[in-house]
């Protein structure tokens, strides 16, 4: 073990901290300490790198200071200022930055080492990390790191745009998008190949820049056609990509800490992606091809005129229905996030509980725009964890429940999924709200949900449409309830 060094040993400690951290992050009780453990691992990794970057490598402190202070401060401000409702966008943005950083690492390595702007041959020869990889592997790692990192970045920006409403949540279908995707993907890979194996000097540089541009376009055109409600899948997939990009950067600099940490993130992102896809009964490929839902495919879909015999209830009537109930289940959806109704929902829940009513919340895995979106919002408004139930655990209870209050959810409660095999959402696990005594559907209009299809629940005898803004409607209901 001639290359053995104390710094390498400490990197191993950091690796262990990440593994323990991510394990703890997947259990409710230990999640917070898991996050802290991973943060300690990160701190350790940074300190080791600063103190002992490797034999013969000297770091330029102004560069380190500028980057760390600038980036650290920005991260601090962003984390402190974000509202819980803005969480999906922030996670997407940070994820994109991680990818971008991996791109820059590869580019900087390329410029510094490959283009030889800095003469490192002397130091590299004596370094235990330096150019050991050399040649082909190193070149491939640079290309992949740039590719995956850049796709993560621009893809995350698009996802963020869709999550924050700056971009339409509908699938944006560019003409000839499959062709564009094919051109930039293969063009980018070919340029990457040329940069790594054939061109030299400035010409290789242009190829690398071309690859970066192609990857950037690929990220944009591959996320644009994916609709807003499929974002949980996209966000977790991009999360996985950012891990892969970090692992590729690890191959570039020959550091196993980056490889392990990146691979862990890649795996966890992939697991979440699969969970999200299962919750919609769709394949990953089907989601990624895009075009699902939204206006574009609302063929044979629904608008208000298609509904017959819809009953509606005002806040007063709805409050009376709730007053008589002994058990109530709330079903939150993306509409609750948009209306920021989580606090009034919780107040209503408490009021009902005080009246001796049994209150629970049913959470569909893909409700909202990011994995676990509803859980975060309800946790923010202090809904007790014990009242939140997953789909499998609560679906049997609707039959014996007096009233179900649906706040801004639509497709995840659409009985078509189990009753009509020809429906686009057939087979998707839904919350069986239609089985409960009465359904109060709080919604702005009869417009279809994301899948762009009619929801026959609206026409059922036991369903009352409560038209209005979620927050305002529940507030009025609450006042009626308290006065009545």
């Amino acid at each position, binding site marked *: 073990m001639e290359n053995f060094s104390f710094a390498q040993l400490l990197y191993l400690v950091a690796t262990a901290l*990440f593994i323990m951290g991510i394990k703890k992050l997947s259990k409710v009780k230990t999640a917070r300490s898991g996050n802290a453990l991973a943060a300690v691992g990160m701190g350790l990794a940074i300190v080791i790198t600063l103190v002992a970057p490797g034999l013969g490598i000297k770091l330029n402190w102004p*560069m380190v200071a500028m980057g760390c202070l600038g980036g650290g401060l920005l991260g601090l401000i962003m984390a402190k200022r974000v509202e819980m409702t803005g969480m999906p966008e922030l996670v997407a943005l940070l994820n994109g930055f991680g990818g971008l*950083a991996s791109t820059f690492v590869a580019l900087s390595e390329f410029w510094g080492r490959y283009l030889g702007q800095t003469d490192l041959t002397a130091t590299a020869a004596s370094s235990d990390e330096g150019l050991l990889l050399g040649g082909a592997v190193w070149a491939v790692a640079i290309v992949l790191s740039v590719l995956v990192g850049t796709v993560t970045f621009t893809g995350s920006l698009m996802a963020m745009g869709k999550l924050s409403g700056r971009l339409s949540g509908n699938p944006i279908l560019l003409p000839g998008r499959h062709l564009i995707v094919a051109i930039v993907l293969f063009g980018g890979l070919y340029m990457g190949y040329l940069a790594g194996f054939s061109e030299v000097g400035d010409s290789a540089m242009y190829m690398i820049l071309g690859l970066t541009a192609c990857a950037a376009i690929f990220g944009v055109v591959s996320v644009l056609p994916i609709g807003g409600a499929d974002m949980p899948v996209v966000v977790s997939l991009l999360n996985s990509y950012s891990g892969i990009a970090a692992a590729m950067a690890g191959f570039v600099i020959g550091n196993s800490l980056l490889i392990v940490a990146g691979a862990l993130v890649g795996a966890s992102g992939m697991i979440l992606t699969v969970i999200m896809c299962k919750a919609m009964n769709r394949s990953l490929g089907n989601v990624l091809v895009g075009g699902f839902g939204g206006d574009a495919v609302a063929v044979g879909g629904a608008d208000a005129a298609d509904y017959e015999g819809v009953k509606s209830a005002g806040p007063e009537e709805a409050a009376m229905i709730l007053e008589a109930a002994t058990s109530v289940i709330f079903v939150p959806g993306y509409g609750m996030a948009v209306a920021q109704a989580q606090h009034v929902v919780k107040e209503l829940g408490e009021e009902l509980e005080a009246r001796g009513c049994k209150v629970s919340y049913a959470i569909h895995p893909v409700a909202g725009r990011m994995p676990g979106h509803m859980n975060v919002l309800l946790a923010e408004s202090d809904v007790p964890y014990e009242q939140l139930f997953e789909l499998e655990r609560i679906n049997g209870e609707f039959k014996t429940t007096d009233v179900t209050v649906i706040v801004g959810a639509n497709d995840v409660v659409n009985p078509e999924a189990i009753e009509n095999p020809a429906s686009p959402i057939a087979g998707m696990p839904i919350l069986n709200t239609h089985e409960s005594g009465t359904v109060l559907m709080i919604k702005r209009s009869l417009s279809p949900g994301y899948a762009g299809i009619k929801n026959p629940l609206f026409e059922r005898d036991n369903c009352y449409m409560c038209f209005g803004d979620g927050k305002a409607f529940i507030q009025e209901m609450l006042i009626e309830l308290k006065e009545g």
Partner: protein
Amino acid sequence: MTFLLMLFVFVLAIFAGNELISKVPPTLHTPLMSGANAISGITIVGALMCAQFAPDEGESVFSNTASILGVLAIAFAMVNVIGGFMVTDRMLAMFSSKKKKK
């Protein structure tokens, strides 16, 4: 480190990751994602190494492409790390504070 060894590490780590997090309660989907995202900021180590591509003595950092890219890499990785861990902690704090009240 040789390429083959790195490939071993990479593949084994993916398997380890799969085993570690095979079952995640839905409550933790967002924090796990956000925490994992912070961990992907480990690319900061690579970014810091880029600070070896320093410009010549007495010249500005911004006179050299490699070092400009290096500074950007450090900055973006740092946003990812600091922002990621802090936001995750804020989220998890909401989950746990509620428990104590109960």
